[in-house]
């Protein structure tokens, strides 16, 4: 599903990723651990075509992301759901409208939008908040809405960058449970975090990234 072959990336001679090679299979759940500045976000941004590697190749579902034309990038992103620490919800739109955005972008029909948005909201248990503004929701609920938006069009991969950074341990556990549910439906999930607590919640494959270098894999464990 995801394959990186000798990928390197630098900003102003500062090496962010160094000769990274890894493979993530279809339906896998992977934790990408590492301290702030380790290169986790850069790696995720490369997977969605936001950044290009200086060296090496990146494949997502068989497509060489580094060689995609700018006009092809949006179509790659429609197959990848993204969740961020800073929620990135539009404050002037309702929960429903926020979640509907990826479907609007794909020019889905009104009926399809209604059906899929309600399904996604049900999956993350915020169906009853659909008409509210994101600002009126708690941080945990806002992150649930973000996850709903990320899964609404049935992505093959879900990338989450510090998704629990703004949440307390209880909400963190709930969000991780949601990711497990999404993964159980067959979606490949990659969660990048610096929080060791998250590792205790996930008994899955863990990749450690330190100063742009991938170190041997460790196994997480359910709390």
């Amino acid at each position, binding site marked *: 599903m995801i394959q990186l072959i000798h990928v390197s990336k630098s900003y102003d001679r500062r090496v962010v990723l160094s000769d990274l090679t890894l493979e993530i299979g279809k339906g896998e759940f992977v934790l990408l651990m590492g301290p702030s500045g380790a290169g986790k976000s850069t790696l995720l941004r490369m997977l*969605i075509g*936001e950044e290009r590697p200086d060296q090496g190749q990146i494949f997502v579902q068989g497509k060489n992301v580094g060689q995609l034309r*700018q*006009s092809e990038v*949006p*179509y*790659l*992103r*429609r197959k990848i759901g*993204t969740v961020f620490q800073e929620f*990135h919800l*539009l404050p*002037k739109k309702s929960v429903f409208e926020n979640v509907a*955005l*990826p479907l*609007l*972008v*794909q*020019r*889905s*029909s*009104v009926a399809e*939008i209604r059906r899929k948005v309600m399904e996604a909201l049900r999956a993350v248990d915020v169906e009853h908040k659909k008409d509210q503004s994101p600002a009126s929701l708690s941080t945990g609920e806002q992150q649930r809405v973000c996850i709903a*938006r990320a899964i609404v069009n049935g992505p093959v991969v879900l990338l989450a960058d510090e998704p629990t950074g703004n949440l307390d341990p209880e909400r963190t556990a709930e969000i991780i449970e949601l990711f497990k549910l999404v993964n159980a439906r067959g979606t490949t999930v990659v969660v990048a975090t610096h929080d060791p607590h998250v590792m205790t919640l996930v008994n899955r494959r863990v990749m450690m990234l330190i100063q742009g270098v991938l170190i041997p894999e460790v196994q997480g464990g359910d709390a």
Partner: protein
Amino acid sequence: MRWLVYLFCEAWTNLRTNRTTTVVAIVTTAFTLTCVGIFVLSYVNLRHAANWLQEDIKVIVYLDDRLPLEAIQELEDTLKADRMVGSLFYISKDQALGEFRAQFPSDSHLLEGLGENPLPASFVVTPAPNYRSLNSVNRWAERVTIMPGVAKVDYNQEWIDALAELIRYIELAAISVGVILSMAGITIIGNTIRLALFARREEVEILRLIGATRTFIRIPYVIEGAVLGVCGSALSLSILKLGFELFRRQIGSVGRFNEIESLVTFLPISGCAAFVGIGMVLGIAGSMVSLRRFGETRG
């Protein structure tokens, strides 16, 4: 269709959210286009006046004083047979004197001292409708001047030449001012769009991340630019129309300008539509410039 509604709603939201900048952009664009419109109106009216003068053009063929009656008749036949001549009538020396006295009664004593009637006989020629352009009349006058028995050919050439020259200058000024002020219009609308883009940069970012194409992201801003351009040009047309009517009423109140009042004309419907269309194009151009710059910084 929901996505189309969404794009229009986004454009409307942009316009409403940045209400002050929207109004300022519309008003400044309107005043800018009004300046262009004044030149366009002047040009249209001068062209109109030139056409009217051309329709009314009369060529006077003065005859040699010593020309016998038979030769005059022969010349009249020759001129009548010319396809460039629409109609003509003869004015004898006595008729010319009579007309002079009728038109300038206080100056008629000036001719008394000369003894013999100094005014020549003439043919007053109206060119055929297809040959009333300045070039045609010029060519025809040159040809007739060298005919035997013709002393001089005269027509309001200087006046028409001067008007044609003036029209050329106004046309040039309208184009120059139009280009410069259009640039100003593009900049004004472009800046408004840039402010809208800046205010909604997070939304643009989110749209990019969820797979929106550049076109999808840009359409609301292009619509916004088009709306600003259309509103600005429509307001400008209203200002022009108001100014035009005031001007016409003013010259109508002065008795001797009555004829001019009926001659001055506003832009035709097609011209108004083109004016609004140009406003829309300027608005879209402003949006595109800002979007391009924004796109360069956003990748």
